[in-house]
Each structure stands twice: as C-alpha cells, then as structure tokens.
C-alpha cells in the first residue's frame, strides 16, 4: 500500500507544480477540456471528437451514451489516457495528463486507473488470480500481498472458488468479473468500462452492473462506462450523451 500511495503523491506533486491545472471544480476527479480527436484514415480525416468538455465528480457513476460512431469509445479512451487528444486536455485528480510522457502515462495508469473492456481482454495464459495480480506485481508488491489482494477482490466479485482457473475455462460473465476484479485490485481513482456487457446476456449483464453499483455505492468508486443500453444507464448517476463527436444539447 505504501508504494502505491507514495507513487500517487509523487506524480501528483510533479504535476501540481506544473502548469495546466484547471482547479475549477473542487470535486471533479476527471476533466476533459475542449477535446478534439481526429483520425487519419488514408487521405480521409475522421473527426471523432469535436470539442468535448466534460467533468466527472469523485464517486460518480457516469454513463457515456450515443449512437454508433458518435465518439463514445474515443472519449473514454481520452479520459482514460489510453489515447492522446489531437487538442484539448484531460485532467485527472488535478494532474494534467498532457504533460506526462508515454512512460509516465503507463505508470499513472498502473497506479491510478482501472479498465474493463468489452471483450474482457484477459491474458489467456494467466489464471484468474494471476490476471488480477499482474498489475500489483508490477507495482512491486510482495507475493503474499498481491496473492491475498487478488483472492480478496475475486471473492468480492463472486469468483473466490476459481482463483486458479484459466480464462478459457470460464463463461463470458465469469471472465468479465475477473476483468472487473483486475480493474479494481489496485483501488484505482477511476474505473473506465467500455461496453462491459456488450457480449453478455441480460442476466449476466445485470450481475456485472450490480457489481459496478456495489463498488460505486459501498466504496465510492468513480466509474465511467460506455453503454448502448438505456437500462444499463439506469444504474448510473448521470448520462453524458454524444452525437457526431459533440455533447448532445
């Protein structure tokens, strides 16, 4: 735990002394300011985001919705610093991520952010437990620490009896729960989920969303989730709607 908090303070301190902190909203944990993202596909330029400004409060459970091609996943990638905006900036917990190098961004993600992908994105050669503790291992935690943390979080998502199971031997719902456990194992500041229930049936989707809600209400976990379904959005506190790369008025 000590290493993690030291790391967070270190990155925070570095950036606090730097420029570009908006500091406009006291409780904002994620701020996207005037984000543009343009992709080049051969000769054609696709403007996926066209000046999006969003703010997500600490402890908030937010859904990003919109029709296909509206820029939902692109926005999530910018906020989750998986991608770099063409212009604009993303500030997470007062840290201007545009000032971070790729290496620093990697480190920042390791300690501060968690991700749940649509297709679970588990490493097939690692067991449930190993998938969960790989990032804790990377943080330099001891074997006892990362193994017990992984067991604890997997038990919390209802997979306490499947620690040594490989992803290939699990159902979609179970794999997604491992993925959630992996995203939450290091107690991230923000959890980003990109259509986490897209490949799941309604019953399993409900279980996954219940889990998100549980971590949000019980632990105050900030969650940003992209979804297509209105009933998924019903679990969230607020919906950010996008259309054609802009916020829908």
């Amino acid at each position, binding site marked *: 735990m000590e290493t993690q908090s030291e790391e967070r303070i270190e990155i925070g301190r570095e950036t606090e002394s730097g420029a570009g902190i908006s500091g406009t909203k006291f409780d904002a944990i994620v701020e996207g300011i005037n984000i543009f993202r343009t992709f080049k596909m051969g000769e054609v330029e696709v403007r996926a985001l066209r000046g999006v400004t969003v703010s997500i409060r600490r402890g908030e459970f937010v859904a990003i919705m919109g029709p296909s091609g509206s820029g939902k996943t692109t926005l999530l990638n910018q906020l989750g610093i998986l*991608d770099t905006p063409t212009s604009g900036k993303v500030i997470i917990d007062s840290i201007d991520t545009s000032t971070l190098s790729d290496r620093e961004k990697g*480190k920042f*993600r*390791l300690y501060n952010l968690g991700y749940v*992908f649509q297709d679970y*994105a588990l490493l097939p*050669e690692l067991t449930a437990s190993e998938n969960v503790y790989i990032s804790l*291992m*990377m*943080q330099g935690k001891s074997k006892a620490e990362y193994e017990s943390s992984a067991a604890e979080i997997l038990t919390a998502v209802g997979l306490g009896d499947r620690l040594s199971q490989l992803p290939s031997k699990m159902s979609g719902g179970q794999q997604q729960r491992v993925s959630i456990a992996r995203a939450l194992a290091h107690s991230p500041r923000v959890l980003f989920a990109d259509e986490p229930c897209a490949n799941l049936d309604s019953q399993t989707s409900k279980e996954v969303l219940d889990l998100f809600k549980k971590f949000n209400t019980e632990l105050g976990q900030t969650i940003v989730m992209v979804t297509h379904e209105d009933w998924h959005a019903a679990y969230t506190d607020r919906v950010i709607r996008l259309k054609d790369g802009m916020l829908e008025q």
Partner: protein
Amino acid sequence: MLEKAKVSFFLAGRSIRRGNKGITIFTIFVLTLIFVQLVLFSSMLAGVTVQFNKLLVDFQTGNVVIEPKEEERYIEAASALQKKIESLSEVTGTSARLKASGAFRYKEKEMGATVYGVDPTDESFVTGLESTMLSGEFLSKPDRGEIILGREISGGFGALMDSRSLGGVEVGDTVEVTIQGRTKEFRVKGIYSTLYFMIDSAAYISRADMEEMLGVQDRDLAQEIAVRTTEGTDEAVTREKLISLGVRENVRTWREFAGLLSLIEGTLGMVRNIMNAIGLLIAFVIIFVVIYVNIVNKKRQIGVQKAIGIEQNVIIASFVLQAMLYAGAGVILGYILMHYGIVPYTVANPVQVPVGAISLELDDLEAVNRAVLLFMASVIGSVIPAYKLANKGLLELIWEK
C-alpha cells in the same frame, strides 16, 4: 528493477508453460538442429585433423624426430644414438633413416620423389607402413635391390595425382632410381597407401642400398631418427627428456611437421566460419519469424498489458526471455544429441572419407562459443520484433485488426 524482472520472468514462464505447445516444441526443435549444424562442421573438421595427425604420426614421423645438428648433413653414430633413445621407458621403437630426393623412371615416364633408406625391422617398430600394403609386401632385412612405392609414385590404386605418377607400376616391375647422380634399377616389392597423399608420394629402400647410392657405406649415418613412444605420452616431455639425456641433435615433435595440415585446417576453418555465419543467419531469421508470429498473435495482449500499466521494457524482456529459453533448450538438447548421440555413433561407425575413416570430435570450447552465438542471435531475433510491436500505440495494438 527487480519487480520488473520478476514480471518479465513471470510472463515468459507462463507463456511457455501455458502457451501453444506445438510452437514451443517446433522452435526448440529447429534451434536444436541449428546448434547441431553449427557444431557439426567444427566437429568434422576436428575429426579430419585428428585423422591427418594420426596418419602423419603412424606412417611417417612417429612421435618425435631427431634431425642432424644445424649445418650438418648427417647424424653420426646413429645406432649408438638409437640405443640411447631406446633407454627411455616410453620409447617403443626408433628408426634411423637416410633420405634423399630421387628421380624415378619407368618406361617413358619420369618423376621425382623422396626416397627413404630404412632398416625394415626398426621401421616396423615406428610406423605401420607394413600394414598399408596395397600390393606385394614390405621390405625385409636381407632385401637388396628392392623398393616399396607409394601409390602416388606407382600410379593406379586410386592415386590422387595419377597423371603425375609413373603410370601404373605393378609389383615385380623394375624402376630406375637416380640419387645424387647414381642410377640403380630396383624391383618393385610392394605398393602402399596410407590415404595421406604426402606420405604416399615417397619410396622405401633398404639402408644398405641407400648407403651405397649416397656413398656412405659402413659409416653408421642417418638423416633422421624417427622415435615412437607409448600411447598417451606427451611428446614435449619426451623431447625434454631426450635433451637432458644428452642428445645434441635437433629434437622435434611431430607437430612441427604438421605445417601443411595447419594450412588445410586454416582453409577449412574459413569455410567453417562462413558456414557458421550462414547458420547463425538462418537461426536469426527463424527466431525472428517465430517470435514475430508469436508476437503478432499476441498483439492485443501486448496492448492490454500496456493499458494496465505493464512497462514496454518488461513486455519486450518477457519475449526475449522466452527466446533465450528456447535457445537454451535448443543448445542443451543439441549438445546432448551431439555428445551422447552423433559423436559416439561416428566413433562406433566411422565415416569413410578420402583420408580414411573419421569420427567426429566435439570440442567443448567450440560448443560454448556456438551456444553464445546462438544466444546472441536469439536475443537480437526477438528484441527487434518485440520492440517494433510493443512500441506501437495502444489503440493500434488493442483495436486494430
């Protein structure tokens, strides 16, 4: 630093343990073959060298050769010196030889070659020429006017330079030999071949005949004394012992006569280096392709690893470690295959080559050298594709097909 190495080892280990077994087995199998190929030629070359050396010692020089002092033509009181040398316990035989360049003539053909005047009994204690007769017999003590020809002189019998020979002399034929202006006819008593063309380009007559032709009868002279020692004796030690015994003549070990062999060895060494370079290049390409295919298949996984904060260097190192493990396994299996399989097989069933039957000789130092080179090839062959891919952007790794 340590935790990064730990993660790299962890990922590499899991990938090998739980990854595609077929790819692992195939890669290790190919690397095993490459290692064998890398050491095989060296082992063959070492085998040929050993065979050449053996031929030289067994059929020409013996282990040690005594030559006249500087600026002297002959060794004086040769039999007394022989007795002195034979007093050493490790010496099993000595042969005092007279030698001269001779001009040979048979029918219309002429050629020049070295002629040795030997005591057949003494010679048989030093060299095994007797056992190499292709036709006829070796000299015996009372023989006069008889000659033994190497097949490069007689011609026929598969001589390598048949056109330069006398063109098919047979046992019983008479050849004319001129030494230092004296010409004498000799009846061919035997034709031999040691398979080493340098030794096969000589002729042997009795000491008495040679003394007569050189005009040095009853003077107990020799131009060289070949000394045979017991198996496993260090020639350098024998040389020292002979010097301390009071032998004032030049004492040389057989190695000093192996100059031509070093030349051949050097030439073959160059060929070996070229083959090694090609072998390594093949190893590099195979490792590159295998790792590249492996990595391309894991593109998304690499993206996910990067997304959750696993450092790029850690990811690259995990692939390099895998390649090193493959190379390590290939080297170990290749070494076992050579040491306990191929080499013992060729010892039990020597390979017939023009210089005789050879067995492979595995030099451990060479094997270590090849292992290091293979390791380097595998490191480079894995770093490049791993770096190229891990360096790509996250979006490209995770979402692009």
